């Protein structure tokens, strides 16, 4: 289909501000009378605050006040998992206990040094398997697990059960959750190759580049909060509840966010924004709270660690007959995350196994708080399952490409334990495209070629994430100048989806892009609700809403024209910013004229009447404030049917040095299958960014804790290593299938998360390939693990490693 905007490159309006440094992130703001907050955080992994003596601190000159958990939660702290603003019951090192406001940070820090906090130490645990032991410590007060709607509970296995799992056997304990479909036993009995083994995925921190600094002040009863979030209105809607301020009294200012990969999507992931907000209210001054990199490690969240057992069976023809998955999730100090289930869902979707069983148990540890992080579950399992497919292919005499084609999801298929149909699925096309562009077949002759201590490894991998939601709202406005204003609540986290989704509205109204204004960046510009921008959903979800809002405006334009100029609504069309009769284009009105006329008529044309009934409360507030100020199109998106998948395929060639355990990625292609491509350069960015994340997942990133004291040992970029320019290829190739999805008006689906998973899958497969099919069953695979394997040394002594059998 020929589009005016969709599929075309453009410069999102915030890009010049990013290259000039003019765009403002939360910490770049100042406010007259602004003072500074600093946090006192827990030095102990699990404790109870018995007493706080801040008398000396509060008497210091320049100190303006203190905020504690008692201020934040006058009725008592919530007895559930999840981060809190401040707490008297820390369950991880670095958890904020109190905050001091002072005229400058030096004074605030000096004041903190004069505060004496008496802690009662409580037992702590860093490894979920330790906690499952009969005498294992519990991470939370009241247990080591949290049962939805029931509260904290204790989950224990026998010592033998833990020991047996550690030894690599299928867990025999009762799981907290079981989900299954198909006849597992029968499917395994049809299998001619069965792989069985344990695996581990280390948790690792989110580490977005911009720490979670925030500025808050109150004016005329309204809270102005400058922060950074992945989502704008979805986040604001939630953070109002966390802080306890009515939605209509919160102005969330967030023109740009310095990176968001899951942990900055939802209000629950950044309750610490409540600290400057409440301090500001308490002392009646604007409060800036700058957050350090170390604090960001703690409050910034982390990926769940998984410790699992997997059994996969393949029929002689390579069909994946069955997959049995048992996962103990490391839920960290504050609970959170459903990664394990998503891992099973991902295997079911990507490989279409006849039978799948997932069993899982989630256990808390006194480590970083966990939550959704780029492909939570789907991406951890990607590097685990891909090498298994390769070994199965070799065993069955099938090519590694063919085994993926044999098992591929495609149009008309269902996926996941819920057996949900895909809205569309073009994975076979993605596999073919990636293989062709990469020259996968031709490169097979290089497989395992050696050059001294170096050996070539080839890997292919697939990624998946559900990539679309619905049920949100859209608003577009037009004034008498005829410019289209897209009121867009999508956050600016670096994907440019706030701009791409706005182009769906421009497309409907055939508006030149330079005549379109995106109204965004702060919620007092009256923005509709969006879904949180996690789960790769923004493009699918919000093109639906803005397309719908523009369609509403278009219908209203035709109505006005038909009323004023005669004829029926169907007799009218638009072109060149005019609504005109189809049969005689001279009979019509300019958009500016029709907008002015709509404003004159008022009522439904200006959002004052006949609104969609289902608008979210947040949108209702926005519409009520916009009502009467311009010509309005407004839309509530109904639910869609099916699972809109985001797929990627990656091919990698590496040269691995068996002497150093290091490898260089010689070539990498990352191909997307995510419906219609909205913005090619934006897509490239997602594919190359996902690739870097995939390289980090497979090779580098993990957090480490000191087992003696529970201290985090990897609070910086150099300790929990984020890949650098030199860890990534000189050039990353990209590509896409670009076939429309029927459940989206412009055919688009998301891709952010799978872009990581497929790269991790392919890279781990390439490492396995270079090492003659050795399956590590782990992410990351570090250089020392490779060296140990090559040397034939067992790799069970990594003193600080967490969430895995090597700990």
């Amino acid at each position, binding site marked *: 289909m020929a589009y005016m905007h969709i599929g075309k490159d453009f410069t999102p309006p*915030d*890009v*010049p501000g*990013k*290259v*000039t*440094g003019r765009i*403002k*992130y939360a*910490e770049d703001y100042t406010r007259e009378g602004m003072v500074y907050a600093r*946090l006192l*955080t827990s030095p*102990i992994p699990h404790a109870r605050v018995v007493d706080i003596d801040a008398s000396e601190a509060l008497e210091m000159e320049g100190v303006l006040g203190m905020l504690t958990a008692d201020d934040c939660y006058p009725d008592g702290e919530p007895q559930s998992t999840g981060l809190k603003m401040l707490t008297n019951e820390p369950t991880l*090192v*670095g958890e904020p*206990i109190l905050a001091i406001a002072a005229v400058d*940070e*030096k004074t605030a*820090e*000096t004041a*903190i*040094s004069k505060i*004496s*906090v*008496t*802690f*009662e*130490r409580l*037992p*702590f645990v860093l490894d979920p398997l330790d906690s499952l032991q009969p*005498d294992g410590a519990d991470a939370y007060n009241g247990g080591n697990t949290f049962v939805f709607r029931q509260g904290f509970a204790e989950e224990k296995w026998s010592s033998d059960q833990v020991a047996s799992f550690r030894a690599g056997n299928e867990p025999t304990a009762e799981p907290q959750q079981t989900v299954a479909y198909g006849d597992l036993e029968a499917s395994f009995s049809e299998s001619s190759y069965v792989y069985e083994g344990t695996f581990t995925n280390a948790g690792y921190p989110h*580490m*977005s*580049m*911009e*720490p979670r600094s925030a500025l808050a002040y109150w004016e005329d009863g309204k809270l102005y909060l400058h922060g950074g979030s992945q989502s704008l209105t979805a986040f604001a809607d939630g953070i109002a509840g966390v802080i306890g301020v009515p939605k209509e009294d919160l102005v969330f200012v967030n023109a740009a966010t310095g*990176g968001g*990969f899951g942990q900055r999507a939802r209000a629950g992931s950044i309750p610490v924004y409540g600290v400057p907000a409440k301090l500001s209210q308490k002392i009646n001054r604007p409060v800036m709270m*700058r957050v*350090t*990199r*170390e*604090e960001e490690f*703690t409050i910034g969240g982390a990926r769940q660690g998984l410790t699992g057992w997997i059994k996969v069976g393949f029929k002689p023809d390579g069909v994946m007959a069955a997959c049995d998955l048992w996962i103990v999730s490391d839920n960290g100090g504050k609970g959170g995350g459903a990664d394990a289930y998503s891992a099973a869902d991902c295997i079911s979707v990507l490989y279409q196994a006849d039978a799948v069983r997932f069993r899982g148990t989630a256990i808390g540890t006194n480590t970083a708080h966990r939550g959704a992080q780029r492909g939570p579950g789907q991406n951890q399992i990607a590097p685990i399952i891909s090498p298994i497919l390769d070994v199965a292919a070799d065993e069955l005499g099938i090519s590694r490409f063919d085994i993926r084609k044999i098992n591929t999801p495609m149009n008309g298929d269902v996926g996941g334990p819920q057996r949900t149909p895909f809205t569309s699925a073009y994975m076979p096309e993605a596999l073919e495209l990636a293989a062709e562009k990469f020259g996968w077949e031709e490169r097979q002759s290089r497989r395992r070629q050696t050059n001294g201590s170096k050996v070539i490894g080839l890997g292919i991998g697939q990624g998946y994430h559900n990539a679309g939601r619905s049920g949100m709202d859209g608003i577009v406005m037009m004034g008498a100048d005829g410019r289209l204003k897209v009121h867009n609540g999508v956050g600016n986290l*670096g*994907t440019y989806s706030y701009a791409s989704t706005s182009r769906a509205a421009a497309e409907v109204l055939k508006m030149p892009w330079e005549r379109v204004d995106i109204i965004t960046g702060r919620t007092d510009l009256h923005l509709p609700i969006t879904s949180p921008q996690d789960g790769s959903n923004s493009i699918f979800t919000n093109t639906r809403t803005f397309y719908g809002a523009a369609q509403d405006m278009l219908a209203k334009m035709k109505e006005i024209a038909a009323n004023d100029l005669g004829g029926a609504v169907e007799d009218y069309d638009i072109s060149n910013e005019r609504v005109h009769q189809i049969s005689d284009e001279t009979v019509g009105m300019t958009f500016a004229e029709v907008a002015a006329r709509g404003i004159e008529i008022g009522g439904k044309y200006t959002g004052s009447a006949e609104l969609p009934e289902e608008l979210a409360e947040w949108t209702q507030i926005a519409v009520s404030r916009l009502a009467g100020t311009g010509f309005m199109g407004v839309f509530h998106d109904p639910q869609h049917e099916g699972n809109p998948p985001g797929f990627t395929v990656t091919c990698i060639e590496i040269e691995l040095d068996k002497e150093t355990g290091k490898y260089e990625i010689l070539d990498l292609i990352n191909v997307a299958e995510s419906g219609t491509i909205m913005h090619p*350069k934006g897509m*490239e*960015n997602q594919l*190359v960014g996902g*690739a*870097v994340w995939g390289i980090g997942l497979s090779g580098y990133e993990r957090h480490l804790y000191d087992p003696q004291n529970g201290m985090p040992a990897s609070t910086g*970029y150099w300790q929990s290593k*984020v890949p650098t*320019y*030199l860890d*990534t290829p*000189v*050039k*990353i190739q990209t590509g896409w299938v670009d076939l429309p999805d029927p459940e989206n008006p412009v055919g688009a689906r998301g891709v952010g998360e799978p872009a990581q998973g497929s790269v991790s899958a392919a890279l781990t497969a390439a490492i396995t390939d270079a090492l003659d099919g050795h399956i590590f069953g782990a992410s990351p695979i570090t250089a020392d693990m490779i060296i140990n394997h090559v040397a034939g040394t067992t790799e069970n002594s990594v003193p600080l490693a967490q969430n895995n059998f090597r700990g």
Partner: protein
Amino acid sequence: MNPQLTRRRFIKGVIASGAAATTTATWYSATGQSRPSGFVERLVRINVNGQIRNVDVEPQETLASTLRYKLGLTGTKLGCNRGECGACTVLVNDVPTYACSVLTHSMKSGRIETVEGLESANGELHPVQQAFVEELSPQCGYCTPGQVMAAVGLLRANPNPSREEARHALSGNICRCGSYDSYLDGVMRATELTG
């Protein structure tokens, strides 16, 4: 108490914790304001973006702190404030320098350039900035000013770098969004723009 205590060598009971242990990280120890009492700010003259700026500076104040909080040049970002990430990169005498890791006092003879100083007087973007726009190099943009300054420093030293050379020159600048490939596209495009 849980019997696990003994095995884990927990200290049983209640302990009083001193503040030195209670805060995991200070802000101003890094930015130079945790100085012993009695120290005073001194007026220094520094050359920033071609202008002589007189600014009161504390003894251990970092250049990043001065730029951001005294001179309002917030284009220089702080990602880590401890020399790990490169977000604070500025040029000092044309050399890319982590502004979080040098003291303003040591800059008296330095020619400091920040991202705000790159545009021409008529508002035209520097070729590196223009190339980064054209190639959509930034994602979230937080590392972008640092990447821009590292790239400008590279092109001054080597106007025609290979992609591999650019990759090494920028390797002190982390991008958590993983936009390295797009930044390198930007650097290569900039070499074309500068001809």
